[in-house]
């Protein structure tokens, strides 16, 4: 009887000390925003950006991507949307509904500035954004509004402070050729129809060269489809 008691207590101690090593938790790790690569190299590792990487290569913009403080990456879907929209427009212009137009048909030299419109000099992260946002110049010289917007999607306002998403917004004139605002105070006065907003599906990836945000798949590269653009 006594040996049994001792045996059981030894077993108990053994179980307590030897079970549940950390290795037993499967999958996932602590969240780390930093990746130990340049922005360009990081894009290369993720297949969602295959087309974007091809585009950067064809445009020789690798160094500019890596030197930009902030880059809003578009996924393959956004570039496909652009190609399809461009194709639809051209087939009407040329009155040829069998027009062949693919990614390779794009004029990459003239699209360089379109891609630069997604790059910014400063590092823009959630910490230096607000609901009002900043209206800042992209590397092609155009202005973009970058702001936080709160949402009740999925939460039904159960939190006292709602979650906030980052949006990249292009401000277009109300009528073709009309004026666009030049500073953030002007942006707050515009008609909502002038704001072409895109939700970021992933934000705040910190690479060794800058900050990377990813625009959602429904975005069309260059905001091509919008009238008065």
């Amino acid at each position, binding site marked *: 009887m006594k040996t049994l008691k001792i045996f059981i207590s030894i077993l108990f101690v053994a179980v307590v000390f030897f079970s549940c090593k950390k290795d037993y938790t499967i999958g996932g790790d602590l969240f780390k925003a930093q990746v130990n690569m340049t922005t360009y190299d990081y894009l290369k590792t993720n297949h969602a950006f295959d087309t974007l990487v091809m585009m950067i290569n064809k445009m020789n913009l690798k160094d500019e991507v890596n030197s930009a403080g902030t880059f809003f990456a578009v996924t393959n879907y956004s570039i496909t*949307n652009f190609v399809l929209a461009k194709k639809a427009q051209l087939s009407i212009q040329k009155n040829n509904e069998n027009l062949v137009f693919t990614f390779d048909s794009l004029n990459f030299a003239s699209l360089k500035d379109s891609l630069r419109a997604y790059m910014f000099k400063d590092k823009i992260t959630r910490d230096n954004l607000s609901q009002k946002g900043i209206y800042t110049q992209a590397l092609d010289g155009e202005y973009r509004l970058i702001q936080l*917007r*709160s*949402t*009740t*999607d999925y939460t*039904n*306002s159960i939190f006292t402070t*709602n979650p906030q*998403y980052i949006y990249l917004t292009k401000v277009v004139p109300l009528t073709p050729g009309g004026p666009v605002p030049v500073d953030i105070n002007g942006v707050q006065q515009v008609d*909502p*129809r002038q*704001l*072409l*907003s895109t*939700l970021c599906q992933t934000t705040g990836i910190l690479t060794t060269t800058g900050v990377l945000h990813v625009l959602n798949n*429904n*975005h*069309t590269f260059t*905001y091509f*489809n*919008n*009238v008065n653009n």
Partner: protein
Amino acid sequence: MKRNIVRYTAGLLMITGLISVSSCKKILDLQPHNSTFTNAYFTNGTDANTAIAGAYALLRSVLLNNYSFHVYGDATTSEFSINSGFDDANYNISNGEFTGLNVGPGIWNWLNYYQLLQQINLIINKVPGIPINKFSNQDDKNQIIGEAYYLRAFTYFYMTRVWGDVPLKLQPDLDVSQAVNIPRTPAADVLKQCLADLKIAESNLVFGYADESQRAVRANKGSAFALEAHITAWTHDYAACEQATAQVINNGQYHLVTDTSQFSKIFIGKSVEGIFEINIDYQQSEGISLNNPYQSGYAPTIAYPFVAQKSNLEWPVSTLYVNTLFKDTTDLRYKKYFFQAQSTSGQTIKYSNITYADGSAKNDPRLSNNIIIFRLADIMLLRAEALNQLGRDGEALTLLNTIRSRAGIANYTGAGNALARTILEERLRELFYEGQSFYDLVRTKQIGNSSSSFISDYSHINDTRVNLGGNLWPIDPTMFKDDFVLKQTPYWQGKL
């Protein structure tokens, strides 16, 4: 020991028997104090008024349930490119991939329609028996009876457009134990009954509204004729449709809203153009809460900036469809009813009157737009369709061009089939997202094949599926469980 057990048991049984025979007589015979039951209800005008209000409330919940009013009428056309990530069930419908089981069964089930019909039948059965002197306003009695017949006709017409043959039940179940299952009545007979009901409704109702707060949200004679016009057009009896629309237009005291800045007021409701609407008004504490998880509040066609904190747009407008219809982008309706329609997240903003219950925090949006069921522009275009079918193109053109000039687009001058098509397109433009488009396409047989979409190309006349009954919805298989006389819609037999 054994004998004792027998004795005790016998004693116990005797006591039990004695108690059950002698106790609890009067208590069980008491009538409940607070509940309403049919025989004690329906004694005066107030009862009748609250009963009809209850019927309208049930109609509202039936139409809002699963967002079915717009699912049946709009998602089935190509109006929207529904986002599968946010609304998968309705995506299947808009994409033409509706093969039965991949769509939520909530919209196949008609049980809540029969709750509504029970209430209506109860009113039709009981209100005529209330003495007229029990009504504080003696006009109310005819009014309520007329409205009840109108609602019954509307409900059966609505159901028969969705399911075809439906069980026709004209008497209330006063005793649940006596309720029996009844088979589906052919759609043609259901529609005949609807027209018979409407004749009674028309004789009991009057044109116009004495009380402005009831405008369009309670049926009147104009609503009844508008419904008659829709039913007769559905059965292609255009001569009768022409007469009913004439009644609405000439005697209904309705006017088109011509002030372009007031267009959005049409969809807030109770405008001079409204003929029949479902009341949804935040001021009367009857708005739809969009954030309450316990209510079915749903506004899939709008998001930021119309709902401050909503970033998901479940039903973006189909750019292709909009561009096909609105070739003329100077069309005021294109400008007023859509927001960034050329983008992949174009919003339809007819119904976007949002009030925030929590003020500037804007966390609790309430939608305050009536559901517009019939309005004058709808009936004018329906009359144009009827006149065109009857060979009176000249009169049809006048009506069509009234609607076109209000929208700021050029007058049309055509005739025959080209005119018929233009009238249909005008209906699709004017009544976009008003729960009418799909029925319009079915009625005019401008409907595409089933494999690509319900409407692949509405210039192409392909009525094969319509002739097979493929425009009708299947009925929920769970309803067969306790009803052996029920049969599945022919087109869907063996397909589910």
